[in-house]
């Protein structure tokens, strides 16, 4: 981001050019299905305004004129917000989510809304009504090289891999260079999972740091807006512009937040890296296990203290999440009745039958399933046994983390996903809940505890697909977390995606990004 910003200030490129290039790249990568709505006219207008500011020598900041994308579960004034659901198709919000407003106030150019799993429920970005999102790496030279020659001919149509979810559209958008940063949301790993599969940086900030006002809620006690960028420095910049108390969201903390620039760490010997043994979960691919070990060795050889730690309740986090999430979903989805906004059924017999019909027409199976499960766990006869029990288990999980961080560990190092991205055809063989339960295991506990975590792309797998590792930090210690992550990023030198479409559009601007990533 710093590079592009400098280019804009020096006049080597104008905001309008940047915007137009991104828009045309979006069109040529349309087969990825990363975007639900593209706000072409509005974006060009914003770019023009930004250009005027630059010509006066008065840019608003590093983000002025930078094209960004936002996940479609953030409210955006004047742009359709659908949450990839029939329930909100055609819904145009009257206001901007606080984080969207903050980006716009910094001069960022909002290109459009990205695709997701319906209402952010899922771990593949495959269950939205606008169709699944394709991982840009499916079309990369690196992946194609490694696929069997026979499958290469029907490649484009049948062999593509998923992006992971639920912020798959945002991850794909950043990964395919159609924007410089994107917003996602993270409730159980929804930002870090697709970040790992798409080879981008995915940051989940501490719960309470960034406002959730305008983010259509899934689980009020665990949701956070997530940040997806191509490098750790960029994530810090975006974080700096978004964090801080918001009077419209009472779950944001009131402490003063000061945006920071990341130091270029050279000496990691003062850090203690914890490696939780429970994260060696069943189903973890041997490739990722090896990568995880290599990373731990990297830190050890650089002088850091690397210790094995234990988070004994990790394996219950998925079950706990399952109960708490469905319960909160049951409550949060109750607002969709067709009266004030969104889809409304033609059924007019009675209020209740209208609500029932509206909701049956508007929600897909996944959402409906979770609402019903949630209501079951909240029934009077089940409340203590399931909901309250899950809340107690939650405390145990949080205490595990408190204990570990209290014993001198600064950062935890874990894998982000169990394997590299699977082909879509294979992914859909199992249902959403099973998939989520499997894929969220490494990322979910962090949401329970509200801790900050970041996925850093680490290496390419045997199949030529990205694999990332996750760093977990202490609450509100994003600066420390990102500093270590940046050091790690520099050590691993994750390769650039080699996409034909990007090469065609590449004229210097993206060259800046490339050198930023590899420097």
């Amino acid at each position, binding site marked *: 981001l710093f590079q592009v910003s400098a280019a804009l200030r020096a006049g080597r490129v104008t905001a309008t050019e940047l915007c137009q290039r991104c828009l045309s790249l979006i069109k040529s990568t349309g087969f990825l299905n990363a975007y639900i709505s593209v706000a072409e006219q509005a974006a060009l207008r914003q770019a023009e305004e930004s250009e005027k500011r630059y010509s006066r020598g008065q840019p608003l900041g590093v983000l002025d004129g930078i094209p960004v994308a936002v996940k479609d579960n953030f409210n955006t004034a004047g742009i359709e917000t659908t949450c990839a659901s029939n329930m909100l198709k055609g819904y*145009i919000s*009257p206001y901007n989510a606080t984080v969207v407003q903050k980006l716009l106030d910094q001069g960022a150019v909002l290109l459009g809304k990205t695709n997701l799993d319906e209402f952010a429920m899922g771990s593949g970005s495959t269950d939205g009504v606008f169709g699944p999102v394709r991982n840009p790496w499916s079309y990369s030279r690196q992946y194609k090289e490694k696929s069997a020659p026979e499958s290469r001919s029907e490649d484009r149509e049948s062999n593509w891999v998923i992006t992971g979810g639920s912020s798959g559209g945002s991850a794909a958008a950043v990964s395919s260079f159609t924007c410089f940063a994107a917003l996602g949301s993270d409730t159980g790993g929804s930002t870090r999972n697709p970040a790992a599969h798409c080879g981008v940086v995915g940051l989940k900030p501490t719960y309470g740091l960034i406002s959730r006002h305008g983010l259509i809620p899934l689980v009020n*006690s665990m949701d956070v807006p997530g940040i997806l960028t191509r490098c750790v420095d960029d994530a810090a910049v975006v974080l700096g512009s978004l964090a801080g108390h918001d*009077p419209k969201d*009472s*779950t944001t*903390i*009131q402490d003063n937040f000061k945006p920071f620039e990341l130091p270029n760490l050279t000496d990691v010997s003062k850090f203690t890296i914890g490696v939780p043994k429970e994260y060696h979960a069943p189903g973890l691919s041997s490739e990722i296990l090896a990568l995880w070990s290599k990373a731990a060795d990297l830190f050890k050889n650089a002088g850091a203290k690397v210790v094995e730690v234990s988070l004994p309740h990790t394996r*219950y986090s998925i*079950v706990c999440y*399952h*109960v708490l999430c*469905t319960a909160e979903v*049951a409550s949060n989805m109750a607002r969709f*009745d*067709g*009266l*004030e*906004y*969104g889809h*409304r*059924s*033609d*059924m*007019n*017999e*009675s*209020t*209740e*039958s209208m*609500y*029932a*019909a509206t*909701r*049956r027409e508007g929600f897909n*199976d996944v959402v409906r*399933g979770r*609402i*019903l*499960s949630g*209501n*079951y*766990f909240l*029934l009077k006869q089940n409340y203590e*046994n*399931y909901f309250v*029990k*899950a*809340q*107690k*288990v*939650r*405390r*145990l999980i*949080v205490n595990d983390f408190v204990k570990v961080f209290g014993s001198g560990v600064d950062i935890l190092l874990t894998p982000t996903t169990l394997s590299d991205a699977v082909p879509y055809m294979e992914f859909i063989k199992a*249902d959403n*809940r099973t998939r989520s*339960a499997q894929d969220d295991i490494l990322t979910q506990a962090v949401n329970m505890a*509200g801790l900050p975590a970041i996925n850093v792309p680490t290496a390419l797998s045997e199949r030529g697909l990205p694999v990332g590792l996750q760093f977990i930090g202490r*609450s509100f210690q994003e600066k420390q977390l990102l500093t270590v992550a940046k050091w790690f990023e520099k050590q691993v030198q994750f390769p650039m995606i080699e996409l034909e479409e990007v090469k065609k559009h590449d004229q210097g601007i993206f060259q800046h990004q490339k050198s930023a990533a590899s420097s």
Partner: protein
Amino acid sequence: KVAVEVLDHLERLALVDFRDTEGIERLQNAIQFADQLHEVNTDGVEPMDSVLEDRCLYLREDDVTEGNCTKELLKNAREKVEEYFVAPPGNIPLPKLEEQEIVLQGS
């Protein structure tokens, strides 16, 4: 297995239907999955509502700072009359599971 009355009750509470046996099976699986929670010993543990439980909630002065956006809010509603949202008649209970099929088929 979940009793039919409970299923009925759930549909009524959630105002969302199971639609078919697959939906009901999904619920059974979900419950079975959640039963694993009972393996954990939580004696003496307080339930946790939020990770920010040690902090005070932000409260501001009770003054009106925004509003007066009736037109924008009404824009998204399908049925309205003047400044009212229009709903079909209330106080009519949802038909039972068996009758529902007939009613909803018409929608």
